[in-house]
């Protein structure tokens, strides 16, 4: 039996969805995009163009949910299937779009540069329990107008895993789509084997900016999967009650679902988000708050009720260091997310309220993900009935270390984390240097960077990616890109 956790009764889910639909139809959504407004109007929505306000209809919402795919797959660069977002199947991905990196040497946060991003890509390509990469950091050594596309460029060059990404401007979509066409070879091939997911974020409360709504439309045009990432803030920009926040989240996410499905019925989507409570003491939005995690798990249940695969920003931390708080908040989140069945769990590596990535934390979080996967396997009999023979053997041999039963089931039943998790007795720990978690994680960071094997991407595709990126950079006056390593 796969263990699980549930927060909402079906009855409560129905009430929340009904209220959200009423919000959408009565108060509407502000959408600053003429093309989107036109599309919605063509399908029966009432639109006030002067106020950029759109009022949905129950029929529109129903129609969109009818064409929404209940699952979809992702594929890596060589074309192998890596993800099947469906049911209670969960996958982890690093938290994305961090402005900063935690520098191991100085213990300070700073802007990342190209070499940091390459190190990240090399590490994540080897992390067993993190199935996709994200465009995790925003390199500060390129023109800001290419800071979104440049991340995807580096990700594709250095790591084969599919990419969770997004654009910061409308203009960037073109080159980011062209990168993917270069890898897959054609629009048809990309449609058949999606390589990325684009995060599209409404602005709470109840708004879509021109950029993000255009992202939804552009992704739909090419069948590129999207994840809607609404961010209501309980007690500030959303009701303080968790149910009230869920109503708002449902409305904001459904508005994206409708837009996407009208643009292209059948576009793959993840019902996602990054809501949080608002801590009035610090005026911050803690991702590590237990209520934040509860909201994530609960809206995931609503998404599943509506028939959609889900995503959430959870399994990260508000801490400023790789410390006990970082471990505690990330692990609680990972376990809750997995038990809830959130299909795409965005968070590993991240600290400081989604603003900072840490390579060392990524290593530790990978172990948390591994432990979580073991948790999901639950407790199943392993030739335990009848058990008498096994106990007879134990009493006779005085141990079961090398019994057939142990040898058969050891690796299936027990998860053995990597060296970053300390399980040595104290004497051995001292003898091996007495390293703390961060030191052990950093040692693993260095090992993975050195053990990295370059991608086997065809030379012509690599060259095309480089040409596309150089052309894009030159548009904004950046004649030369930062030097890339030869591997």
């Amino acid at each position, binding site marked *: 039996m796969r263990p699980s956790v549930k927060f909402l009764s079906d009855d409560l889910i129905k009430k929340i969805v009904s209220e959200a639909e009423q919000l959408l139809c009565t108060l509407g959504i502000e959408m600053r995009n003429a093309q989107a407004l036109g599309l919605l109007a063509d399908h029966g929505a009432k639109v006030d163009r002067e106020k950029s306000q759109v009022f949905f209809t129950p029929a529109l919402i129903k129609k969109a949910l009818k064409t929404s795919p209940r699952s979809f797959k992702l594929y890596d660069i060589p074309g192998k299937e890596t993800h099947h977002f469906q049911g209670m199947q969960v996958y982890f991905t690093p938290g994305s779009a961090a402005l900063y990196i935690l520098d191991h040497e100085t213990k300070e946060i700073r802007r990342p540069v190209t070499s940091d991003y390459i190190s990240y890509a090399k590490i994540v390509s080897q992390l067993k329990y993190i199935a996709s990469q994200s465009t995790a950091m925003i390199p500060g050594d390129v023109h800001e107008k290419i*800071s979104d596309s440049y991340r995807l460029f580096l990700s594709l060059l250095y790591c084969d895993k599919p990419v969770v990404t997004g654009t910061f401007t409308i203009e960037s979509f073109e080159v980011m789509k062209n990168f993917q066409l270069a890898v897959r070879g054609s629009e048809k091939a990309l449609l058949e084997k999606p390589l990325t997911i684009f995060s599209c974020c409404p*602005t709470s409360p109840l708004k879509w900016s021109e950029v993000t709504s255009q992202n939804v439309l552009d992704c739909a045009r090419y069948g590129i999967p999207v994840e809607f990432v609404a961010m209501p803030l309980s007690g500030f920009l959303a009701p303080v009650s968790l149910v009230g926040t869920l109503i708002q989240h449902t409305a904001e996410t459904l508005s994206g679902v409708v837009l996407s499905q009208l643009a292209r019925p059948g576009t793959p989507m993840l019902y996602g988000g990054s809501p949080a409570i608002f801590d*009035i*003491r610090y005026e911050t939005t803690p991702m590590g708050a237990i209520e934040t995690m509860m909201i994530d798990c609960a809206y995931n249940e609503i998404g599943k009720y509506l028939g959609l695969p889900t995503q959430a920003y959870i399994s990260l931390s508000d801490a400023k260091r790789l410390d006990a708080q970082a471990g505690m908040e990330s692990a609680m989140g990972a376990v809750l997310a997995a038990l809830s069945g959130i299909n795409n769990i965005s968070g590993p590596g991240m600290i400081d309220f989604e603003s900072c990535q840490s390579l060392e934390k990524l290593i530790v979080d990978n172990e948390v993900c591994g432990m979580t996967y073991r948790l999901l396997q639950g407790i199943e009999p392993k030739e335990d009935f009848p058990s008498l023979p096994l106990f007879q053997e134990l009493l006779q041999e005085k141990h079961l270390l090398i019994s057939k039963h142990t040898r058969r089931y050891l690796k299936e039943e027990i998860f053995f984390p990597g060296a970053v998790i300390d399980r040595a007795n104290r004497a051995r720990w001292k003898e091996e240097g007495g390293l703390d978690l961060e030191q052990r994680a950093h040692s693993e960071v260095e090992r993975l960077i050195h053990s990295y094997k370059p991608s086997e991407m065809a030379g012509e595709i690599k060259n095309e990616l480089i040409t596309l990126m150089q052309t894009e950079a030159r548009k904004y006056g950046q004649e030369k890109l930062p030097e890339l390593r030869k591997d």
Partner: protein
Amino acid sequence: MEILMQIRDLLCQADDQQVLQLVTKAIREKISAKEILEKGLLAGMNIISERFKNHEIFLPDVLLASKAMHAGLEQIKPLLIEASIPSLGKVVLGTVQGDLHDIGKNLVGIMLKGAGFEVIDLGKGITPEKFLETAQAEQARVIGMSALLTTTMPVMKNMVALLKDKGLQGKIKTIIGGAPVTEAYARQIGADAYAYDAANAVERVKELIKV
């Protein structure tokens, strides 16, 4: 004067009804608008501000006290204008061109109003030209700019450049903030100040206007 101390204390308790009644009474008793403002309303907000800085109270408490202050302020506003008593200063706020995020900017506006400043909030997606036009029309002393996207931060640089171009650098001060914005960036572009949160913004604006 006892009535002014009562106004001050009731403002601290966020009792807007009582503040309104007592301010009206004080006006009837011919106490000057300036004294009501300084010894009653602003005195109360200064206590609130100290308590907030010391983490004894939090943002909602400040907002409620600010509501009480404005209840009283509305009563004496016509008298202040008549006596030509200026507000602490005018601040033009906005999220820069190309950016839609305004949570932080809204919090700054709320806190500045609570501190006694007059705030003209232009909203989102504001060009340097619009900031300048409004600041000049309103005779504002500070332009406050917010950005959440690294791609929109250059607008802040353009604003500073525009002020310099028009010979207004130093006459109209600039303060910037937002998640990707840093003190270093503020120095780099020649902005007059940077604030890391709404409360800090109030302190910095006070320094800029030398209140």
